[in-house]
């Protein structure tokens, strides 16, 4: 179905790798890119600060690495990202890069990944050739807590991620790794977490083709309900007591994003809209992935599940608002608990 929708062209998956300065993005990438499965991957690295150091570590990508000059991928050089991706597409279609299976965009440590997604979804050409399948965030087991405490960018990166890789677990105390994992789960219950010592991580699992990212079932971990991070970030996992009117949900969410876009870090989940399969909703701040109407549910659980990660908005307000919209939605929200 997906191919039919795209008129016979397959979109190339684009993976965004984000993570705070020194959190091991490059180590992870250089490890991952050495896998044969990743041979036809082009990598876009952003030069920022130190002169191309990160780039030289990524040996495998040599000529396919397009350095984005002029600073941060997100804010100042989004056009560069467009140009770089169009350039890759051009080389691919002229046969100079015969196989282009995937593009990885490595962001700077301070980058907010949302604008990258926005660039890909809104560009008239790129939106037909690339789909963002996965946002990976690396978090350093030694300094992760410190970064999360002091840098809102770091929290945004975790909230935007579909998968979080905790790096340097070999040099950190086990207890502090566990604590960090719990905290990451509290910030973003929809993300899958991995541990990587010295960049060693299961590549297949991280980049599992066709299952990664937006198409995967969000791994909602609702066990610790009403989770909130020590800072002002809250997350709430919800379900509905019946099929949700998709049009009404679109009205509610577009209205919320217009009013509180800055404060909604993430929306992710699957909604039962009364069809054979769910609608996959995935949004990072203002940027909503094109919602996918699936033909079938990925697992036996056919109930809606959705995670909202917000900054400063108390979870009760979101639930209360959805409850007030219940008449329009055709279903009532309730917090998602796991069976004990």
């Amino acid at each position, binding site marked *: *179905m997906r191919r039919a*929708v795209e008129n016979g062209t397959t979109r190339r998956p684009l993976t965004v790798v984000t993570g705070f300065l020194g959190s091991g993005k490059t180590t992870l990438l250089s490890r991952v890119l050495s896998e044969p499965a990743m041979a036809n991957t082009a990598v876009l690295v952003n030069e920022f600060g130190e002169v191309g150091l990160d780039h030289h570590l990524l040996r495998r990508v040599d000529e396919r690495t397009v350095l984005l000059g002029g600073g941060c991928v997100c804010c100042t050089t989004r056009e560069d990202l467009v140009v770089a991706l169009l350039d890759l597409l051009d080389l691919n279609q002229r046969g100079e890069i015969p196989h282009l299976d995937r593009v990885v965009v490595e962001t700077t440590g301070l980058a907010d990944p949302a604008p990258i997604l926005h660039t890909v979804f809104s560009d008239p050409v790129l939106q037909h050739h690339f789909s963002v399948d996965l946002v990976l965030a690396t978090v350093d087991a030694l300094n992760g807590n410190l970064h999360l405490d002091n840098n809102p960018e770091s929290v945004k990166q975790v909230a935007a991620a579909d998968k979080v890789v905790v790096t340097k677990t070999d040099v950190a105390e086990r207890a502090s790794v566990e604590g960090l994992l719990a905290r990451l789960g509290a910030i973003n219950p929809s993300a899958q977490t991995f541990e990587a010592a010295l960049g060693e991580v299961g590549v297949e699992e991280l980049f599992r083709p066709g299952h990664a990212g937006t198409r995967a079932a969000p791994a909602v971990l609702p066990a610790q309900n009403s989770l909130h991070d020590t800072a002002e970030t809250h997350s709430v996992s919800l379900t509905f007591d019946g099929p949700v009117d998709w049009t009404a949900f*679109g009205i509610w969410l577009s*209205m919320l994003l217009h009013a509180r876009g800055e404060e909604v870090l993430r929306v992710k989940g699957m909604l039962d809209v009364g069809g054979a399969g769910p609608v996959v909703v995935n949004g990072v701040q203002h940027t909503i992935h094109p*919602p996918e*109407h699936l033909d079938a549910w990925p697992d036996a659980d056919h109930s809606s599940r959705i995670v909202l990660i917000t900054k400063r908005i108390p979870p009760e307000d979101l639930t209360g608002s959805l*409850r007030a919209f219940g008449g329009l939605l055709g279903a009532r929200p309730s917090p998602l608990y796991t069976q004990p």
Partner: protein
Amino acid sequence: MCVLCGRDFVGVHWTDRHVEDRALLSGPSGDSSGYQRDRRRDRAHRAALTNAVLRHYGLRVEDWGGSKYLLRDRKGRSEIVQDLGALWPAAARLAGRPLDPLDPALRRALSADDDA
């Protein structure tokens, strides 16, 4: 870009995406009358639901020729919008305040509608 109205159609708002996908799926040889019927029904349904929210701000929206929405206030001012992405900023301009789904007054009003 439409040469008649000058509107840029590059970006399909995410809330309209399922309509576009359905159109592409059916293809050029697809059942276009069925698609048009569905699309009109979707648009009428969206206008009706949106009005349930907008009336608490003294606003009203209607489908305008099957391609745009016409948003009006009670003083007769109006704006034409393409989709929900453009509707909320326009509604905020006409209402003179942002429309926030978390607003307790709106929540109370919507809940009262349900009970009525």
